[in-house]
């Protein structure tokens, strides 16, 4: 398909808009989940939402996606509260609680789904789209719902920005300042659940957690500021949605959810590698640079050790007496000369006054580096 069709095709436009909005809200709220070290909470909640969908269908007998998502929201919230109950009231740890809720709720949900499938109600087909999501089933009203939820959560986030930030970085301090941390905590959790529930139809239960985590984890690498991170994560999420939809639309047999997740994973990998501050490549380069610098200084200090026994510091010495143990290489020598710390004449080197002073202060941290 060509590009113009991509922009004119109504269905595709709706889906793209939907996945972009979804990516943005997930990235935004996912930032909080990642920073609160609750990355896997999203995974647990998305699985825990499944029985809610099934129960909502059993009660209403209709496949209205808003009603089903309401059911998902309720059971997701029950999951969150149970996780909190397990971790605060018993000695079981968070990971156990998450794994428990995730698998138990999901298993129960599957039980209900298979039970529903055996029912004579012809309406039941298609409930399993919530497992892996089917972006193709997105219609305008779904996108409208997403936009509304995104707007509300954006509003709440701006209103409670200070509180959220404080809670993220220093919960005890927030408590001593008299903020109702329980309420703020609950509010953040509520919106994370909301984001997950909204995404179930598109990405599905199983992959939803990646939607929440990946953009945030990628954004985290580029900045240390919360506001920048949230905005970046939203952008990454939106682009994952758009690219993922485009790629899956361009080929047959490519389900949108997994492709979006993989695109988001690419964002993460690129960020891990190339972010200037924290990225692996630049970190490695800095490491090598530091190592070289250290070698250079080692050579200089060795020279200083020789020179300081003489009255005349610029007396020439043979290059031969240096060896690689002192970090000596041809390169370091020319670099030392470049820095004007030594001069080289033929097979000899001699130290300059500048070099002497630098070497003397090498291990004195109070002197700023030249």
């Amino acid at each position, binding site marked *: 398909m060509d590009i113009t069709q991509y922009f004119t095709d109504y269905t595709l436009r709706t889906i793209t808009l939907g996945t972009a909005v979804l990516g943005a809200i997930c990235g935004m709220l996912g930032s909080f989940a990642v920073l609160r070290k609750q990355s896997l909470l999203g995974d647990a909640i998305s699985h825990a939402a499944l029985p809610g969908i099934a129960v909502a269908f059993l009660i209403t007998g209709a496949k209205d996606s808003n009603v089903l998502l309401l059911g998902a929201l309720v059971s997701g919230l029950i999951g969150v509260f149970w996780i909190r109950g397990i971790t605060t009231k018993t000695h079981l740890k968070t990971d156990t609680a998450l794994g428990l809720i995730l698998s138990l709720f999901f298993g129960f949900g599957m039980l209900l789904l298979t039970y529903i499938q055996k029912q004579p109600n012809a309406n039941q087909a298609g409930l399993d789209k919530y497992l892996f999501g089917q972006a193709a089933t997105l219609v305008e009203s779904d996108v409208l719902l997403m936009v509304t939820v995104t707007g509300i959560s954006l509003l709440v986030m701006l209103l409670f920005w200070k509180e959220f930030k404080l809670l993220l970085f220093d919960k005890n301090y927030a408590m001593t300042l008299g903020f109702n941390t329980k309420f703020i905590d609950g509010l953040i959790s509520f919106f994370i659940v909301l984001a997950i529930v909204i995404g179930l139809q598109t990405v599905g239960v199983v992959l939803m957690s990646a939607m929440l985590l990946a953009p945030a984890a990628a954004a985290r690498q580029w900045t240390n500021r919360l506001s920048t991170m949230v905005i970046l994560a939203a952008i990454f999420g939106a682009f994952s949605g758009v690219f993922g939809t485009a790629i899956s639309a361009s080929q047959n047999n490519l389900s949108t959810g*997994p492709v979006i997740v993989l695109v988001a994973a690419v964002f993460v990998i690129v960020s891990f590698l190339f972010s200037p501050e924290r990225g692996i490549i630049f970190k490695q380069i800095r490491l090598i640079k530091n190592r070289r610098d250290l070698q250079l200084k080692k050579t200089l200090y060795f020279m200083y050790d020789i020179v300081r026994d003489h009255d005349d510091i610029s007396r020439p010495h043979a290059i031969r007496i240096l060896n690689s143990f002192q970090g000596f290489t041809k390169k370091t020598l020319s670099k030392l000369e470049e820095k004007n710390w030594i001069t080289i004449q033929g097979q000899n080197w001699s130290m300059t006054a500048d070099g002497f002073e630098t070497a003397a202060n090498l291990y004195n941290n109070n002197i700023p580096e030249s």
Partner: protein
Amino acid sequence: MSPMLDIQLIAAVTAAACAIPGVFLVLRKMALISDAISHSILPGIVIGFFITHDLASPWLIIFAAFSGIITVVLVELIQKTGLVKEDTAIGLVFPALFSIGVILIAQNANDVHLDVDAVLLGDLVYAPFDRLMIDGADFGPKGLWTISITLVITLLFLLAFYKELKVSTFDVGLSSALGFSPVILHYGLMSVASVTTVAAFDAVGAILVVAMMIAPAAAAYLLTTDLRKMLVLSVLFGVGSAIGGYWFARWLDASISGSITTVLGILFLLIYLFAPSKGLIAVLFRQNRQRKEVSLLTFLLHLNNHDSENERRVAHLQEHINWRKVRANSVLQLAEKNNMITIDNQIVSLTDKGLEFTEKALDYIITNKDEKIEDMKDDFFLFRG
């Protein structure tokens, strides 16, 4: 053997095989690794299938177990870079691998008899019909063999390294000081968990594997802190839920693995609520009692500090300790019931018993010695009435 019995046997053996590594995963706070492994073996299975073109090939298990171990290694690699926390690393790795698996299946949907639903849920119903035939003789269902062998391997691993596992689980420092490499044990355990997940997953699906590993162990952990008892209990819970779940599924005519998970869930819920001393009700009861006792102590100490009648009027006390009326009254009643105080014309005064108790309490608070607290514990039990 009838298919009915076969299914129950497979479910029960799977539950036992999962429960054992599950206990260690829960104790080592690595429960979520099982979730990650169970999802990320999917690409391994798919790739294994492309190579062998045989869903029953043992190579599939090896490929899958291998991708399980790759998951663990990847998670640890990402974690080591320090760019993200461990849980984020887990959350990033397995959805990505799972997505690759799903896409691979979808791309080749026409020639792969591999359904994503089956991956998630397994099809225990059909397990009895895939039988191991050697020279025309019927040796029972293949799934039963696979999982039984896994169980035997797990048991051997457990028996051989029980002591090492125990030490390295509870005290990593001590274990490396004693010369048991925690790294080797860690990867050993991860390999066992991987293989078990793969073998079990064949029969019961990815999600149930997680439930079978974590839920019995978590339930057992609420009942005991003895590793041996915990292992036995979790195997019992697992096997019991497997058989109970099978009959529940028959009655409901729904997914067996979903139903086993549900039974596990109900079991865990019951234990979570009613476990003696660690269950929710016991904990809430204890917290409530402690709160009452602290209130009582505060009240008595307050009385002890104030001699003048003016300070000991009931109404005044309520204001002074800043309690609401209901709470103040309940504390007052409690103290009176235990003969700690007498109320005479709205004036509260300590009895001899109350005085003695207060002094003891003060003594403890000042010295903060443990031997005093033993005595106090006995005293505090008095107030339960």
